[in-house]
């Protein structure tokens, strides 16, 4: 219960800090916001002083910042994110649509990485210094260090072989390429974390004792190994969601995925303040939510933290 209460307070803090800081940052950006918004709305062929003036008048951009800040915080309390300055659509609607697309991609990537990384990590950790362990170290270091480059390679290879569509959205096969590109980087780290945890646990007296008392390897692993390995892995998974967003931004642009990373980048360029604020806020709260879920899960599988 205290966890939930703590996290609720944390969520409120995140909302206020993200809200105020995005507001301040968007105000502090150089350049005339009316022109930037007009360029985002009408495109570079049609952005003119007349269009910028119309935008300025429509949005009241000349007004003082303080009432605008109060207005935004007031709307925030009512969970009203307003409408996008560029598209005119409600921000909430756009976020739900785009976050949904990103979330599915992220889940597919995490799912795929969990299928690849931890099993290999466990096998390597059971025999530290073995062939698999050494190969895995090299491969995972390599994968982690060249994600975009690798992405390009997979793209070109799969397109030329006719295996996969280069880009697109809407069908399940469109998931494969971006999810795989993200998952390889995640799996590289997953595997290392699992391997280290596994290697540490096999050294522990309780684990060795389980073997001495006559349990078979598989039994020891299932009864005494997996749960222990899961704790650092899950904790790290929470962190991975954060790094995942970073990868998602890049991948979404490359494969034309209508996700939140893509939306955030474009909103910043077009000075679409409500969209930036809404997106940053939802992402911030999303991290709090993910961490809460991870905390609760870890507490369930690891009795040591309970009082």
């Amino acid at each position, binding site marked *: 219960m205290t966890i939930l209460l703590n996290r609720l307070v944390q969520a409120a803090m995140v909302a206020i800090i993200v809200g105020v800081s995005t507001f301040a940052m968007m105000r502090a950006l150089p*350049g*005339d916001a009316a*022109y*930037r918004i*007009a*360029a985002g*709305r*009408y*495109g*570079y*062929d*049609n*952005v*003119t*002083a*007349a*269009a*910028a*003036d*119309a*935008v300025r008048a429509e949005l009241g951009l000349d007004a003082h910042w303080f009432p605008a800040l109060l207005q935004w915080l007031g709307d925030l309390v009512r969970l009203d994110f307003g409408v996008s300055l*560029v*598209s*005119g*659509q409600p921000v909430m609607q*756009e976020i739900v*649509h785009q976050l949904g697309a990103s979330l599915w991609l992220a889940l597919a990537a995490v799912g795929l990485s969990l299928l690849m990384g931890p099993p290999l990590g466990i096998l390597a950790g059971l025999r530290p210094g073995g062939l698999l362990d050494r190969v895995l170290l090299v491969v995972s270091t390599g994968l982690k260090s060249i994600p975009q480059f690798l992405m390009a390679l997979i*793209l*070109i290879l799969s*397109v*030329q072989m*006719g295996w*996969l*569509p*280069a*880009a*697109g*959205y*809407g069908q399940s096969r469109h998931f494969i390429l971006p999810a795989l590109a993200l998952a390889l980087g995640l799996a590289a780290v997953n595997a290392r974390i699992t391997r280290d945890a596994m290697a540490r646990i096999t050294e522990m007296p309780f684990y060795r004792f389980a073997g001495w008392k006559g349990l078979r390897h598989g039994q020891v692993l299932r009864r005494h190994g997996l749960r222990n390995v899961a704790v650092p892995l899950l904790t790290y998974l929470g962190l991975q969601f954060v790094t995942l967003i970073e990868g998602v931004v890049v991948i979404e*642009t*490359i*494969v*034309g*995925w*209508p996700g939140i990373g*893509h*939306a955030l980048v*474009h909103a910043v*360029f077009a000075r679409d303040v409500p969209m930036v604020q809404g997106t940053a806020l939802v992402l911030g709260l999303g991290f709090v939510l993910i961490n809460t879920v991870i905390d609760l899960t870890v507490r369930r599988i690891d009795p040591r933290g309970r009082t």
Partner: protein
Amino acid sequence: MSKPLPALSRLLLAAAISVTLGTPMLAQNNATLSVVAPFEVLSPEPSIAGYIFTRMGIAETLVNADAEGRLLPGLATDWTASEDGLSWRFTLRDGVVFHDGTALTPAAVINALETARAKPGPLGDLPITAMEADGNTVVMTLSEPRAALPAFLAEARAQILAPDAYGADGMATAMIGTGPYQLTDLSPPLSLRASVFAPYWGDAPHVGNVTYAAVGRAETRALMAESGDDDFVFTLDPASVTRLGNSDAVEVLSVAIPRTLLLKVNAAHPFLSDIGARQALSLAIDRAGIAQAILRYPEGADQLFPPAIGAWHNEDVAPLTYDVAAAQALLADLGWTPGNDGVLMRDGERFALTLLTYPDRPELPLVAAVLEQQLRAVGIDVTINSTNSSEIPAGHQNGTLEIALLARNFALIPDPIGTVLSDFAPVGDWGAMGWDNAEIVELAQALARGEGDDADRARVTAILQEELPIIPIAWYQQTLAVAAGIEGATIDPWERTFGLQDLRKPE
């Protein structure tokens, strides 16, 4: 050896072959044609993404234009102007229905155009004082003659949507057009789907369904074309054009369009106010080098308008050339002498300029980098500022802009007079700056009223060539990769349509 078939069998066989071969060609099929282009479809609002809906054949305008820019009937079957040019009558096509089933009426047309006129854009600048319905005709009253009025009505922002398409604030909330394709799904900002609209007034399209996907990166678009997954991939980067040209899976089309890569010059800047200085800048630019090395076009632009715009391309002007020695001589005449670092000096001032450009078109920063080198060769020190496109109109307005590299579309309206009027009579956000030429203003206004002729157009282009308020560098080519098996693909140089209704794709 087989026996010759009896006559009846031969007849039946011929009929069977013609049916099997002919049917998919004649009737519309259930295939899906996928279009990929860089433009995001942010909303159904015509002023924001309207051009995508006209290009996809979902929304239509009163007037259409062919590949030569000649105006053709659209939702209006014909139009006439009164003797004094102040009253225009547009007769609407009979039997047109919107995608929501309501009929196209003069009231609906007036509603759509009034809504469009309330938003920023060329339509709002037209001197229209009233629009009224008269039977099946829309009557527009002008406060001064505007011969190009029908061309303004061919632009995407003048598209006619059903009254229910617009929200209370005049922004379209739904796409209810009259085109051969009806929107079935819109997922801003990247995709839409549409299917054939059976009650369409014109010829039914051959392909039953179309999809559109916005993909920002040119390299990704080229890969999509190469994979054969997408049928109609618009706008390719120069390197991909070369690569895809060698592929059997796609055909690459390329057409010169009325878009010019040019250098906008602040003619009020003390270094650039003299015609000689602007001519020197122009002489310092190796247009053929830029065109061939960066854009992979055969040649650069030797005047503002490409040959594709027949009426405005002037065969008689002296072509812009590349001559470093002549540029240096002109600058020396203006009192510039090379300083210690090779940069020209005059009265203790360095010839240093800031060049604004924007990365929305990926070739612009590359061309800017080459220009920096070429201008340095004549002693002009250029600093590149690659920023948001809106910095150019903003810099124009507050007078801080020095030079800017940009790609100007002269055919937003299929009659370049609209852009000439907004850019050079006498200045414009994307055109001339700090420049004042009474003659061109008078000529352009007369042409806009419908009073001038080709000699006046030639005089306008001659003035631009002589005074160089903007310095043309290259004429753009639009590129398109079409999957093998698709028939009938063309590029509309005026960028009004993808021509999807004329395409054939085997099922």
